[in-house]
C-alpha cells in the first residue's frame, strides 16, 4: 500500500472517530428508542419546573382582588397574564415580587386598535388618542377597569 493511503487512512479514522464520539456524546439519550424522536420527550417536559400556577393559587392570599376582579370585565383574564409567572411568588412572596404592569403599552397589548382583531371580542382604543397624558391605571382600576380611581 502506498504511504499516502496509509497516512490518509489514519487521518480519516481519527476524523470519523471524532465524528462518532461527538455523535454519541451529543445525541439526546433517549433518541431513537421508539422512533425518530426522543423517547423521553414527554417525561422531559413533564419534569420541567412549573412557571404558571393559575388564578386559583392566588386566591389563597389575594382573595380580595380575585373577587373584586370577578365583578369587572377582566373577569376571564388570568392574573398571571398581566403579572407574569407566579410559581416562585407563591413559594415565597417576600423575595419573589411579581411585575406590576403600569405602562400604557401593557394595556395596549390587548386593547390597542388593530384591524386584524374583531371589536366584538375585545374593546379597542387608540393609544395615541385615548387620554394620552396619563397612564391607563391613573383612571381605570386595573382589576376592574369599569371603575375609575378618584
Amino acid at each position, binding site marked *: 500500500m*502506498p504511504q*499516502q493511503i496509509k497516512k490518509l487512512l489514519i487521518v480519516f479514522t481519527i476524523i470519523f472517530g471524532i465524528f462518532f464520539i*461527538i455523535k454519541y456524546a451529543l445525541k439526546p439519550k433517549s433518541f431513537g428508542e421508539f422512533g425518530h424522536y426522543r423517547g423521553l420527550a414527554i417525561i422531559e417536559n413533564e419534569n420541567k419546573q412549573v412557571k404558571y400556577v393559575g388564578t386559583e393559587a392566588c386566591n389563597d392570599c389575594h382573595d380580595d382582588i380575585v373577587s373584586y376582579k370577578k365583578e369587572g370585565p377582566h373577569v376571564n383574564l388570568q392574573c398571571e397574564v398581566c403579572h407574569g409567572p407566579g410559581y416562585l411568588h407563591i413559594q415565597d412572596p417576600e423575595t419573589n415580587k411579581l411585575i406590576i404592569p403600569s405602562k400604557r403599552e401593557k394595556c395596549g397589548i390587548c386593547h390597542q386598535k388593530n384591524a*386584524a382583531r374583531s371589536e366584538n371580542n375585545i374593546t*379597542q382604543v387608540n393609544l395615541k388618542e385615548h387620554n394620552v397624558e396619563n397612564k391607563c391605571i391613573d383612571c381605570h382600576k386595573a382589576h376592574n377597569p369599569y371603575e375609575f380611581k378618584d
Partner: protein
Amino acid sequence: MDPRYESLYEALKNVHGYIYPNEISLTWSILIVEYPYITGLVAGAFILASLNRVFKIKALEPTYIISLLTAFAFLLVATMPLISHLGKPLRFWEIMITPHSTSAMAIFGFVYLWYLMIVLLLEIWFDYRYDFVIWSREKKGVMKYVYKILTLGAMGTSEKDLKWDKKIGYFITVVGIPSAFLLHGYVGFIFGSVKANPWWSSVMMPVIFLFSAMVSGIALVLFVYMGINFIRKKVQNMPTLDSIGKYLFYILIIDFTLESLDQIHRIYEANESFEILSMLVSGKLFFTLGIMQITVGTLIPLLILGFFQFFKPADKIRRIAYFLISIFVLTGVFFMRWNVVIGGQLFSKSLHGFTTYNLGFGGQEGFLMALFWMIIPFGILAFLLWLLPPWKKAVH
C-alpha cells in the same frame, strides 16, 4: 386614515390580487438565493478543473489549480447562508447528529461532506503533497511545521510515490465529476421536488441547475484567473482566456437551450398555472429575468463569445471583453437563482395574486449579510493562494 387599518394597509400595499395571509411575506430570502448560487460556483469550478485534467487540455492548464482552490474556498462557505438563515443558527449541527433518511436537507449535509472531504480536499492534497514536502524542507520557522503537518507524514518523494499521487489524484477526479454533478443536481432537486409550486416543480430543474452551475463556475474561474494575473502584474495568457471563453460559450448554449426548453414546455402545456406565471415573468420578474438573466447574463455574452469564435479582435479588446463577460455571466446566474427562489414565492397558491419581496439592508437576512457571505470566499481564496501558491509549485 383610521390607524386601525394602518398596519393592514402597510401589508396590503405589497399585495396585488388575491393572496392567502401566510403568503404575504416570503420565508426564503436572499440568503436562500445565495446558497444554490455558491454551491453552483463550486460545482462549476470543479467540473472545469476535472475536464481539464481528464481531457488534458493544454491551454487550460494554468487554471487547473486555481479552479480547485476557488472551488474549495467557496465550498467552505456554501452552507453558511443556509445556516445564517436559520432561526437558531447555533443548532445547525443537530441535522448531522440525528439525520432522518427522508429529509432532503439532512442528506444534503452528507452529500456536502462527501464532496468536501473525500473529493475536493483529497484532490488538492494529492496535487500538493510533493510541494508540501519540498516547502517543509525549504521554509524556516513556523511555516516549516505547518507544511510538515500538511503532508500528514507522507514524506516520500521517490518516482514511485509521485506516480501514486498522480494515479490516485486521477481516480479522485473521475469519482469527483459525478460527485460534483450530484452536489449541484441535488440542490436543483430540492427545488424541483416541491410539487406544490408550479414555478419549481419540474424534472428539468436538476439539469438546469447543473448547467447554469457550470456556466457560473467557468465564469468565476475566468474572473479569478484574470484577477490574479492582474494583481500579480502578469501578462494575461490569451490562449488560456480564449479556450475558457470557448468552453463558456458551449456550456452557455446548452444552458440557454435547456432553460428555453423548460419554458417552451411550460408555454405549450399552458396548464392552470400558466396565466399567473406569464404575468409573473412579464411583471414582477421582468427586470431580474428579462433584463438581468436573459439579456445581460446570457444573450450579450453569447453574442460576444460567438463573435470571438469567428473573428479575433485585438488582444486588448478581447481581454476587456472576457473580463466584462465573466462579470455579466456571474451576475446573470445570480439572478437566475433569484428568479427561481424569489420568483417561486411571489405568486399566490391561489394562482390569483402576487406579493412583493422587500430586501432589507441590515439584519439577519438582509443585504449586508448576503454581501458578507459573498466576500468571505474571496478572503479564503486569497489565504489559500498565499499558503499554497500555484505559481511556486514544482513542475512534475
